[in-house]
């Protein structure tokens, strides 16, 4: 076992930190620590400008292979970048869905034409993506999607009809990757296609859904004869499930790397508050704060172990605990923040419903255990795939 980073990696860390110190200032000072879960609606234009700034410095998509414009950064370097980014107060990324989900999927499964067409915009920090998976009747049971894609021989294009829901950042996105049924007779995960759909067209309607935070980070997306070029399906019709599952692999892996440092910032804010308001003297809260500290340390060690898995990015079976562990830890942290705030936790910054950062963190953490596979689904996965217990009966 070896816990230290190599001298080259430490040098890389300095380079990242220096670039952030030199650039995350001046006009960008105001976006520091903004955005991200619970604050997604803040300073969107400014944060998009920041995405372009990052791109100029060559700091978008660093994990992509060099031939596609990335840096081919190692896992260690991606960890370092994400740690330094969070440490510097880098704003929540708007480009993360393109960078960590759409891009890697296109690189892994897309055609040459798709790579040429879509990757540069993501790299430049100019083109944003959203994920069109969930539907009213397909949540945990993702394979139950009903959205249809029909190939129109006359126009030579796909026509998409149906509805997606809970689509994060659809209102800020140029493209959506959509799973839709290409074979109308098919059921479950057979007969699906994976489509790259332009949002700015008459057949696509985005309607915001107000969340319990009072803000609207996600949306309903309606497809009424939305059009998609025949070159914009990834893989063949019927391959959609394979492509989508490959993508979930990316989602659970590299995209959560920076998380621990973000959580550390939140934890530090709670500690500071506890010292100021006297909660730090309350024995029960001391226990819970220390427990959160233990949990956060372990979160970091979990990800270190997970990333020390196969060089090919394959995960060991213990990596299956990761999502359930961090989501549950973070949800508990949200409640701890309110309990440390005490009676003040109720008081808003402003009417009608302006939450402070800890309040919106608290409320938003209730979704951590839902999106990306609920806690119950994670337990099913662990029991079945890691412990070899029987699969759930299916209706």
């Amino acid at each position, binding site marked *: 076992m070896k816990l*230290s980073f190599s001298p080259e990696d430490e040098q890389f860390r300095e380079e990242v930190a220096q670039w952030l110190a030199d650039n995350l200032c001046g006009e960008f000072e105001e976006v520091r620590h903004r955005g991200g879960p619970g604050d997604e609606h803040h300073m969107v234009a400014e944060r998009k400008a920041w995405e372009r700034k990052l791109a100029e410095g060559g700091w978008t998509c660093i994990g992509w292979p060099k031939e596609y414009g990335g840096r081919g950064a190692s896992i*260690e370097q991606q960890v370092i970048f994400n740690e330094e980014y969070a440490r510097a107060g880098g704003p929540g990324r708007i480009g993360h869905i393109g960078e960590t989900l759409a891009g890697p999927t296109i690189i892994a499964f897309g055609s040459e034409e798709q790579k040429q067409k879509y990757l540069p915009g993501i790299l430049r920090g100019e083109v944003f993506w959203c994920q069109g998976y969930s539907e009213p009747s397909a949540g945990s049971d993702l394979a139950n999607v009903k959205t249809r894609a029909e190939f129109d021989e006359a126009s030579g294009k796909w026509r998409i009809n149906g509805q997606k829901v809970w689509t994060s950042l659809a209102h800020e996105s140029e493209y959506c990757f959509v799973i839709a049924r290409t074979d109308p007779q098919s059921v479950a995960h057979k007969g699906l296609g994976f489509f790259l759909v332009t949002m700015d067209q008459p057949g696509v309607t985005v309607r915001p859904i107000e969340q319990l935070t009072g803000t609207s980070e996600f949306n309903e997306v309606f497809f009424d004869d939305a059009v998609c070029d025949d070159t914009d399906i990834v893989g063949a019709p019927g391959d959609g499930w394979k492509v989508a599952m490959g993508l979930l692999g990316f989602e659970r892996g590299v995209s959560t790397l920076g998380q621990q440092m973000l959580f550390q910032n939140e934890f530090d804010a709670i500690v500071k508050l506890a*010292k100021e308001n006297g909660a730090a003297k309350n024995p029960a809260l*001391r226990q819970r704060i220390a427990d959160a500290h*233990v949990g956060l340390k372990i979160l970091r060690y979990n990800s270190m172990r997970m990333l*020390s898995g196969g060089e090919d990015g394959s995960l060991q079976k213990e990596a299956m605990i990761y999502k359930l562990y961090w989501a549950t830890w973070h949800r508990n942290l949200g409640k701890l923040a309110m309990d440390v705030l005490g009676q003040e936790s109720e008081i808003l910054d402003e009417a009608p419903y302006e939450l402070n950062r800890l309040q919106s963190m608290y409320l938003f953490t209730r979704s951590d255990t839902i999106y990306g596979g609920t806690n*119950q689904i994670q337990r*099913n996965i662990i029991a079945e795939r*890691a412990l070899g217990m029987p699969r*759930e009966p299916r209706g």
Partner: protein
Amino acid sequence: MEFAFTEEQQMIRDTAADFLAEVSTSEAVRAAMNTEAGYDAALWDRVCQEMFWQAIHIPEEHGGMGLGYVELVAMLEQMGRYLFCSPFFSTVCLGVNALRIAGNEAQQAQYLPEIVAGKTATLAYASANGGWDSDAITATCTAEGAGYRLDGTYRYVSDGHTADILIVAARKSGSAGDDGVSLFVLDADTVGVSRKWLPTMDQTRKQAEVVLNGVVVGAEALMGEAGKAWPQLQQVLDLARVAIAADQVGGAQQSLDITVDYLQERVQFGRVIASYQAVKHKAADMMVKVEAGRSALYYAACVADEALSGGALGAELAEAASVAKAWCSEAYFFNAGCGIQLFGGVGFTAEYDIQLYFKRAKSTETFLGDAAYHRERLAQQILDGEAAA
């Protein structure tokens, strides 16, 4: 960065697992735990002579294998898994650690080779007042002639009734807290030492009361500087906590594994009970507990390794030990407790092994500080110091 066992470390772990599967069977554990000594002397001889485990992290210059704490932890995890009954923990994780941290050259040169040769050792510091801090030390040392006179009573001494070598903490009369604490090393048969086995709920880990009544030792028994040994003792205790966490991770894993095996066989309502979601989810939670514990343990093992070898990471020892001991204590108890529940009636019998894990979970949880104790220790570091960085 490579936060995983090397091939050599995997080999050490697998060799330990294979050996223990053969010698530390349920029958062997039950036979050993029902004796006062708590272990099979012939088996301990085999461990020392064939496996050479007692020498694992004793430096080569003293006849040991000179391996690190990560290798030690890899073995301890397997001992926890197989409920191994032996004086290994007391001798290696208390005795050898104390000699390595606080012993002078002459003491190391005398006692470490004795341990290599098969002698056992332990550490006694806490009295009956229930704590694990320096306040727990009530035995006294008084300068007498060229040496010292030691008086006092220690409880909860691991294998204290069988150990050949004793390392004891005593304080200067009238001192309090971290001040005035000294460490001594002496043979257990020194005049004035009396020892009594304390029967325990967890029969796989033996404890004793050790009484020193006017024990006279020479100046050569003093370890480190008189009156200033608490920081060193604390380091020894933290190394021991990492070792216990390893036993806990092994036990928590085995509790999960034997439970899942049972769930896959037992049929109720026409299906194996492993197919019920309430049961699956409980098993999944058990896996989260033990895997998170393993992450904490391996990190602490790396830190402990550097604490002994003088690496920079060694400065984190107290924190890493508390993180690991807090989590792994609760994880083991959770897994063994859920295990009994999921076994149902047979889980409540003496015959099934899950009860042995349940009891060992509790005894390792309490020993050297439970989760609440370690969380408070961390809280002091986080909340009572200067503003967090």
